């Protein structure tokens, strides 16, 4: 039976598997705890997803899932360790697939998402959005673009650091709209948001979940996605407003070291699908301002490949 049929069967059998968890893994019976390497520090955005995943894993896996933080070098330290781990199904890596991909494109790292790993699944997706301060004259993207075209090089915008997916997505928008503006990197989402609220910049590219609680200080003009955010439903996408902005986001992807048996990958893929469909996982994600977004191995990899093709020209233009 091929993988897709297997996944469908598993999905259909969720009720059954709830009764007998081990049924989900045709041949794969993990006996030792699964180490989920997160190449970022404890408490960060990516880590919170891993913690939510591990907390909900109990009913889908017969062994505990242990989150192992290996921060350093923008996620490359942990990725290098995960890529070199023994491919016996006890080590997986969960990372921000977008950051991993962009770091690879920008810094030509030794490990990369395509050649060093096998993709297991995607469990969620972080999207970025264009925000302006509440007292900004811009009500729509068209207002902003018109003003930027009238004053080339005058506008200032910020993001969470050069090479972040917010930066690349924002640059993608600037290229698409044909505007010239100066980008100012800030350190992390909180500082970037505070600078937008304080009117230090004309606009900022910040994760959509950062807007929650700041409705009277910020206005979100557009979302970089092909569909609206399930939580901030009022925010239109760039596409809705007529801008073909490359879909740069940060999928939360689970990887396995190269050489991991196909049945382990399939077993883990099925387990992840089951975990992400549980209400407690959805609740944990909601607390983080997000929603589960499961994609199977093939789709998750296709998503990363599409992003690579979209980001490569932007990155190449930046490096000129």
């Amino acid at each position: 039976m091929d993988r897709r049929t297997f996944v469908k069967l598993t999905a259909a059998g969720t009720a059954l598997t709830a009764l007998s968890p081990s049924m989900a893994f045709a041949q794969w019976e993990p006996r030792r705890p699964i180490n989920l390497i997160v190449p970022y520090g404890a408490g960060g955005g990516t880590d919170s997803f891993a913690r939510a995943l591990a907390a909900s894993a109990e009913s889908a896996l017969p062994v505990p899932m242990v989150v192992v933080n290996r921060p350093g070098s923008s996620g490359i330290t942990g990725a290098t360790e995960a890529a070199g781990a023994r491919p016996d199904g006890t080590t997986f890596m969960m990372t921000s697939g977008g950051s991993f991909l962009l770091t690879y494109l920008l810094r030509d790292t030794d490990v990369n998402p395509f050649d060093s790993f096998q993709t297991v699944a995607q469990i969620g997706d972080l999207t970025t959005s264009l925000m302006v301060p509440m007292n900004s004259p811009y009500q729509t993207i068209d207002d902003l673009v018109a003003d930027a075209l009238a004053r080339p090089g005058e506008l200032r915008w910020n993001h969470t650091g050069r090479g972040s997916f917010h930066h690349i997505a924002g640059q993608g928008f600037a290229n698409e709209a044909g505007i010239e503006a100066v980008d100012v990197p800030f350190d992390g989402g909180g500082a970037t948001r505070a600078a937008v609220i304080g009117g230090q910049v004309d606009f900022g590219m910040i994760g959509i979940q950062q807007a929650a609680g700041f409705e009277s200080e910020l206005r979100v003009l557009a979302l970089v996605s092909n569909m609206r955010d399930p939580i901030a439903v009022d925010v239109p996408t760039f596409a809705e407003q007529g801008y073909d902005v490359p879909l740069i986001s940060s999928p939360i992807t689970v990887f396995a070291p190269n050489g991991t048996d196909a049945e382990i990958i399939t077993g883990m893929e099925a387990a992840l699908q089951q975990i992400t469909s549980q209400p407690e996982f959805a609740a944990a994600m909601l607390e983080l301002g997000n929603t589960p977004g499961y994609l199977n191995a093939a789709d998750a990899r296709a998503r990363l490949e599409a992003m690579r093709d979209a980001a490569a020209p932007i990155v190449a233009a930046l490096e000129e």
Partner: protein
Amino acid sequence: MDIFAALGNVITDPVLMLWVLAAAIVGMVAGAIPGLTASAAIAMLLPLTFYMEPLSALAFLYVIGKSGRYGGSISAILFNTPGTAASAATQIDGYPLAQRGMASKAMKVATISSVIGDYTGDILLIFGVGLIAAVALRLGPPELFAIYFAAFVVIGSVIGKSITRGLASAVLGVLVNMIGLDPISAEARFTFGSFDLTNGVSLVPLMIGIFVLGEVFSQIEARHSPVEIVDTSRDHDARARNRLSWAEYRPCMPHVIRSSLIGSFIGVLPGLGSSIAAFVAYGEGKRRARNPEEWGHGALEGIAAPESANNAVSGPSMAPLLTLGIPGSTIGAILMGVFLIHGIQIGPTLLITSRELIFSLFACGLIGIAMYGTIGYFGAAWVGRFIIRIPTNVLYPVIFLTSFIAAFASRGNLFDVLVMVLAGFGGWLMKKFDFNPAAFVISFVLAGGAEETFRQSLLLSHNGLLIFVTRPVALAFLIIGVAALVLRARTLGRQAKEAALNDA
């Protein structure tokens, strides 16, 4: 009033109260151990807090900072060895009192003064933080850079015995901070191709190295000069001598009030800290005292002034951290990491996103003060006897090993252990040759933000450097910095003359 609601919530949470109590005791003991400071204890205990609730973790470390600042006075008075740099000022009058058999009385004065100073600082913080946060949202990179600039100037002017060596220590701190990815372009620099250095040198192993391992090395050198505790006998006479009456404490009150305000003011300035506050308050107190001739020979006021200033620093030093994201002290820099680890974004929006947590933290601080005050008032001598009973050839090896565990556990990275060991030798050598390790660390802490805001300002600016002059708040802070520099240069010139005259 958020703080009363928070106090109610905190008091009814037994687990949290236990952590605060543990922090009060741990801080007091760590502060009293010669060589261990509050920030060293916090750096070593940091990994433990990864597994705690965010509020418990922050409250635990915050209260250690408070009681550690107080704990230094125990060893200053009882062993004639300052437990922390700040308590060296307490030692001037504390030890003469102890020699006269009035150690407990000196401890009581130190305790009461610390508690009053700490409460003054915390209450100013609680009422001031909202105001500062409201203003902070309007401050952009140019204004923040001007604040960093003023901080660097002020640090440079209080740098210690040798100005050139002090400045060299500060510059070294800035250079070490630059290792890693450039904050604007994200290009690697000073990494010598090393993969481990691309993320820079982390603060926690660096601090453990300088403040813990370096101190252990210094203690190994000083091994042959044993620490002795003064007699704390408890016969009838001693009890009578050590009773503290309000009539005796009343002359201290003006000093306590003035010193608390001095400490709070110095605390809110980034980069300065407890030891400067304690010495400024001692000097100012002596200058204004009615009995200056008694100061230095066991005046109770001479204990009250530095102790209250030392602890008044604690609360206000949180203000630049919480509202601007500028770590005002080494403790602040570690707490900044703890906020990050628990996913709490500090900065001007903190009171919007985590208001309840922040006021609960303040409430824990208020309770922590009462706890260390009570324990200290009745049991400081006991804590002193407890520390003296641990043989140094057990205590320092244990601290030595713990520093390795702590450096590894903060990120699970062996490279950090290497950083810690190198920093340990560095810190020891710096002390030996009269360089200033504290200036090194605080410059390391401030350099990252200063560089980032400077370069952000240039990107934001339409006319290059003029952005610092055309924005009024930024200009004001730059003028304060330059004025401090000029003033300091003048007093230095005068002091040099006086010194020269004295020599002649």
